[in-house]
């Protein structure tokens, strides 16, 4: 009954979607031809054509992410932060409880291997977020890589945990730093998240103004947050 009903409802949904997608398609593909008159703006084409000169970053996605839609990114960071906080709140009492049975200690090879790989992963992560404005990748991706390093530690080197307090401190600090950078922009140029640093020449590491700076903070932040989430989840295991 429920299944049949669900199927019917989903069918209607699918029909609606199909009818909306039919005809001149939506999306960049459809907009590539001169379908829209000049009065209409198109973010994608605008950014693709102007981003490099406006921000100095060769990765347009990065410039969109940090400058054009910087507020989104700030919000996104906040969402992650909120999720981490929420996780901590939810698992607050659970964490104090000792887990029922101790997990088996990993073998020496795994232990050593993990310890060996861990800094390399961190380094790779750092590379990704430092070069975010030049190559594919960026703060989030780099942060995720960093967090995977933490995950490795949890899996491979049980008993060794990064200091939660320090992780939290880094998280908060980088969050504050992001806001402060935005506010500096406001103070300097009257506009939040203004790219107030010199843009440098494209394709150089030290270019694109605040983008790499923000990316570094985001990288730290995301890495710590995801690491914290992993830590919370693993600690709450019964």
């Amino acid at each position, binding site marked *: 009954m*429920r*299944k049949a009903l*669900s*199927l019917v*409802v*989903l069918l209607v*949904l*699918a029909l609606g*979607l199909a009818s909306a*997608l*039919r005809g001149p*398609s*939506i*999306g*960049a*593909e459809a907009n*590539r031809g001169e379908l829209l008159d000049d009065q209409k703006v198109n*973010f*994608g*084409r605008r*950014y*693709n*054509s102007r*981003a*490099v000169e406006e921000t100095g970053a*060769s*990765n*347009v*996605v990065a410039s*969109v*992410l940090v400058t054009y*839609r910087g507020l*989104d*990114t700030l*919000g*996104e960071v906040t*969402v*992650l932060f*909120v*999720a*981490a906080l*929420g*996780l901590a709140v*939810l*698992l607050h009492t*659970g964490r104090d409880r000792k887990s029922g049975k101790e997990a088996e200690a990993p073998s020496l090879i795994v232990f050593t291997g993990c310890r060996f790989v861990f800094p390399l992963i961190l380094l790779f992560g750092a590379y990704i977020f430092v070069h975010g404005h030049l*190559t*594919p990748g*960026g703060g*989030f991706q780099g942060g995720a890589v960093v967090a995977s390093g933490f995950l490795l530690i949890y899996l491979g080197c049980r008993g060794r945990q990064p200091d939660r307090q320090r992780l939290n401190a880094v998280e908060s600090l980088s969050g504050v730093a992001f806001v402060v950078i935005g506010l500096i922009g406001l103070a300097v140029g009257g506009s939040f998240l203004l790219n107030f640093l010199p843009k440098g020449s*494209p*394709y150089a590491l030290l270019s694109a103004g605040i983008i790499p700076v923000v990316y570094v903070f985001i990288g730290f932040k*995301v890495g710590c947050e995801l690491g914290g*989430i992993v830590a*919370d*989840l693993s600690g*709450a*295991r*019964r």
Partner: protein
Amino acid sequence: MSFLADYVHYIGCFALVLIGLYIVLVKTNLVKVIIGINLIDTGVNLFLVSVGYIRMGTAPIFSEDGAAGKQMVDPVPQALVLTAIVIGVSVVALGLSVAIRLYEHYGTLDLRKIRELKW
């Protein structure tokens, strides 16, 4: 057939969304429901990306040998997807932690049995 060919990416991502929705609607295990949500997220993300997709387009990254802006795909959906992924991750993480707590309280993840709050 041409519809299929032209819209295969849309069909694919909406199929994911619908499958995810079906899971959420029909499955009673909370973890499976979260998986369903995750599937929906994935489908939506794919949809966003395909909105910005241009046939034979390149990534919106300039390099020193120079590629024309016209052939680049739309960078905005990519940025949006990045945000959406993070949000999805957050929701899923929170959902899992809730599932953990719920299991502590109820000893089950069957949503049909977790119905103390009703009416």
